[in-house]
């Protein structure tokens, strides 16, 4: 079960620009970044 730390309801003006990290077409910047970090980690550990 997931728990939520907090919810905020905003009324905003001139909000953004925003970065969408997860879109509805399967794009996920966080997952991409994690894969890159993992690959970099392996390389770093080999070179240590």
């Amino acid at each position, binding site marked *: 079960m997931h728990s939520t730390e907090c919810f905020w309801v905003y009324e905003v003006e001139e909000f953004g620009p925003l970065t969408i990290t997860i879109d509805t077409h399967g794009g996920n910047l966080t997952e991409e970044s994690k894969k890159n970090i993992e690959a*970099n980690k392996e390389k770093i550990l080999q070179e240590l």
Partner: protein
Amino acid sequence: MIMKDIAQVIEDTAVGLLKLAATELPTEVKEVLIKSENTTEGALGKSQLHAINENVRIAESEIKPMCQDTGLVSFFVKVGDKFPLKSEIKTALIKATKRATEKVPLRPNAVDMFKGNTNNNVGIRGYVPWFYFDLVEGDKCEIIAMPKGGGSSNVGKMKMVPPGKGIKGVKEFVVEAVAAAGPLACPPYTVGVGVGGGEDMCMNLAKKALLRPLFKYHEDESIASIEKELLSILNKLEIGAMGLGEGPSVLDVHMEFAARHPASLPVGVVISCWALRHAGATIDKEGNVELHPH
């Protein structure tokens, strides 16, 4: 001469320190975040750093917390032998935490496992706020308030590294810990590493290492060179600002070493989000307060 109520001075000072820590970053942290925004080339990373810096600026000018997570409170206290108060320091700091919760305000972050949120940042079973007490010579009392966010505490790690792996094993574990933190804990990070002592001491040392001003390296040259090496290595992970791969991953790395048991090589890694918050003051025996440079 009217004698000051020292306990009251401690309480008032600590309320001020919690407020300062929550609303204003130490100068060198502010400066490096602005420099990072200017030097980051990718628009994605630059926009994250711009948002962070704008947030920091507004928090400071409006005197409002820079993050909704105002942290779990801990105090690092050095008590001089001739300072008039001892255990009353603790009482005053607990009172200060409750007052600051109302006044700043701080989000109530002390949750009891069975009774729920205490609503005042003070645990009902003791321990929170957490105290690091040290006894020192002299007649002063130094207090540093450090509220630490839950997100970045969630990625802290401890490992009993096989001693045969030596310093290479230490470096490997730091790389693994920061890579595992990845985008999860609001980077760019400051990384505190504690080596030696025991399984508890290495974590304490790692947290304490975060209090050293950024870019002030260990006085032992051999340790300083490892700090700088790790800073360079960890940035090759390309975590980037808010984990999006652009801009700095890590702002600085600080290490503290204790002696270790021959059979053990404990390594603690405590990670701070970009909002590396702490504020300190020294109070003398007459109750005069000197704020530390912030």
